[in-house]
């Protein structure tokens, strides 16, 4: 089992390094990620949203739906913890009512 896991990890790291050779060079202005969307985002922030912080503009406006989802992830975690821990406390209280 252990051996299998290490083989798997070795394959994974090999795969990652193999793929990294084909990733765009770091800090390359011609990389698709730098060419494609970010100029639009910058321009639109300047003209429509009119706030300086690009990250905030994208986070809360262009991709505000993502942020909504993300806030709900946190909320889900909160509810999950409440459900898990409150419940077991109740069970325990039933078991030892003296405490």
């Amino acid at each position: 089992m252990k051996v299998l896991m290490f083989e798997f990890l070795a394959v994974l790291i090999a795969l990652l390094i193999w793929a990294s050779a084909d990733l765009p060079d770091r800090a390359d202005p011609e990389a698709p990620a730098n060419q494609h969307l970010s100029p639009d985002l910058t321009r639109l922030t300047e003209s429509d949203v009119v706030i300086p912080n690009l990250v905030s503009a994208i986070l809360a406006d262009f991709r505000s739906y993502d942020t909504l989802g993300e806030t709900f992830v946190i909320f889900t975690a909160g509810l999950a913890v409440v459900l898990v821990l409150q419940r077991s406390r109740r069970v325990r209280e039933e078991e030892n009512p003296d405490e």
Partner: protein
Amino acid sequence: MIEEISARFPYWAIAVLLVVGLYGMMGKRSLVKQVIGLSIFQSAIILFFISGSLLEGATIPILYSVHGEGHANPDDFVNPLPHVLMLTAIVVGVAIIGVALSFLVSIYREFGTLDERELLDDVRE
């Protein structure tokens, strides 16, 4: 050679971090260690995204031109989109770890141990 290494090593380092995190999740007996592995794994992904958002000669994505003069040149800023994604990812990661820890506490209260092997033995009896 040096150039190649200097351009690629972050990816390799990130690959190592990913694998280390994965090892923590899969190979460690302690459930707490598994959670720590999860945390490492997630931050490696964050580094991966940010590392790809770099731009030659660019600065942080704050447009000082908005309330000032002139127009911003997109090439002056690092790509902000991965930053946004990673903000989300960090929060998701913390949420998962919070839930995982609540599970841990709950399991510990029930079984009195966090050693996976002992737990499995306990369940199988």
